[in-house]
C-alpha cells in the first residue's frame, strides 16, 4: 500500500478511497472541460479511477498523487473524446450544458462568462484546451502539466501562449493586464 504523510508527520496509507473522495469532483469537471460533454467526461473519469485502483502501488510518492491521477485522466480523456470527436461538431461541444430553469436571482454576469468560456474552449485544439484546463482550472504547474500531457515544458508554455492569444480574440474582452 502506498503511504502518505499526515499533518503530524506520521506515515499514513494513501488508500484508493481517499484518492477517490479527494479528487472525483475535480477530475470529473476537468474531464468535462477537456472533452466538451458530460458523457465522455464520465467515461474518462471512470476509466481513470479504474486504472488508479489497479495500479495504486505504482505511485511511489503519494505527494504526487494529483499529478499522477491527472496524467492518467488526460490520456483517458483524449482516448474517449477522440472516439466521439469526429461525430461532434465544434459548435455542439458543451451543448445542453446551460443550467436549466436558471434562478432569476442567479449572477447573470457569472453565468454569461461561463457560457462564453465554454464557447471559447470549444474552439481550441484539444491539446491547447487540455493545457489551459490543467494549468488554469486544476492549478498544475507547467512542469506538472507537461508530465500530465506527456510533452516538454516548452511545449506546454507554447500551447498556453497560443491558447491565451486565441481566447483573448474569441472572448473580445478588455483586461487590466496584457
Amino acid at each position, binding site marked *: 500500500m502506498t503511504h502518505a504523510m499526515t499533518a503530524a508527520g506520521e506515515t499514513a496509507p494513501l488508500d484508493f478511497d481517499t484518492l477517490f473522495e479527494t479528487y472525483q469532483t475535480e477530475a470529473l*469537471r476537468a474531464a468535462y472541460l477537456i472533452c466538451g460533454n458530460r458523457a465522455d467526461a464520465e467515461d474518462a473519469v*471512470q476509466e481513470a*479511477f*479504474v486504472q488508479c485502483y*489497479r*495500479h495504486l502501488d505504482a505511485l511511489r510518492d503519494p505527494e504526487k498523487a494529483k499529478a499522477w491521477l491527472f496524467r492518467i485522466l488526460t490520456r483517458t480523456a483524449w482516448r474517449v473524446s477522440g472516439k466521439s470527436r469526429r461525430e461532434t461538431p465544434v459548435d455542439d461541444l458543451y451543448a445542453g450544458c446551460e443550467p436549466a430553469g436558471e434562478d432569476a436571482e442567479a449572477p447573470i454576469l457569472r453565468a454569461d462568462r461561463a457560457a462564453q468560456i465554454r464557447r471559447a474552449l470549444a474552439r481550441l485544439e484539444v491539446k491547447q484546451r487540455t493545457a489551459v484546463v490543467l494549468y488554469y482550472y486544476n492549478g498544475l504547474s507547467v512542469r506538472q502539466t507537461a508530465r500530465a500531457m506527456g510533452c516538454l515544458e516548452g511545449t506546454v508554455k507554447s500551447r498556453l501562449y497560443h491558447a491565451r492569444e486565441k*481566447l483573448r480574440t474569441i472572448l473580445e474582452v478588455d483586461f487590466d*493586464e496584457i
Partner: protein
Amino acid sequence: MKFDTYLTEGMQEAAREVTPDPALRTRVLAQARAAKPSRLTRRTRVVATLAAVLCLATGAALANSPVVSLVSGWMPDASYTSIADEARMEAKLGYDVRLPEALTEDFTLTEYEVEPVSMRDSANHEVGSYLTLCATYRKGDERVYLNAARTEDEPASDTLSDKTLVETREVDGVTVTYREIPTACLPADSTEDFTAEQYAAEERGEMFLSVGSAEYEETIYQTAGFELDGVAYSIGMHDSMADWSSEDFFTAAQTVIEAE
C-alpha cells in the same frame, strides 16, 4: 480583472453544474476488480499455485526471485486504433507480432495497446517487467481479445489443469490449444464467499475466481493459445462476450498465424 483570473473563474463557473454520479464509485470498483479476460490465462498460471516457485531465466539478480504475481502496468505505454500504426506499435513493443485486421469475417480490430506487465515476488517487490500486446476485436457489442507476449519474457510455467484443455490441433504446422476454463465472479460488495470446493478447484488450476460483477455469475473463459516465432499468442473471452465455438477459435488462430 487579470486575464488568468478571468479564465480560472470562468472555467470554475462553466463546470460548476457538473457533479459526480453517486454510483460512480460502485462502477469504478466493479470494473477495477473484475478479472481482465485478456490476462486470464497467464494470471491463472500463477494464481493457481502461489506456493510454486517460478524462476526467471533472465538476469542473475532475478534468478532466485520467485514470481508469484503478474500485474499489468498502471497505464498502457501506447494505444492505437488504426492498423496503419502497427509498425509504431512493434517499435514500442520491441518485437514483431502478427496482428490481423480481423479475426473472423465479422470481428474487426478496433483498438490495441502496448501494456507493461510487472512481475512481483511474494513481498510484492517488482522482480522484472516486460511489454505485451493487447488487441480488441469487435462485432457490435461483442468482443474478443488477442494478446501477445515474447515467450522469453514470461515466467515459464503453466499450471492450468488438463481438465480445462478441450482440444489441441495443428494449424499450419503450429500447435494450437483450446481451453474452456470455468470462472465464478462475486459482486465487489458481496458478503458471500466462494465455496471451499471452488477454492480447491482454483488451486488445482481447474477454474478461476474473481470479484466485480453486478451479481454472482458463472461463465466459461474460452481461450486458444499457441507459440510462433518466439511469441506466445492467446485469443480469449468470457462466453458472455461473444458466441464463439471452438471452431471459431481455431479459425481465428489460423488467421493470426497466416497474418504478416
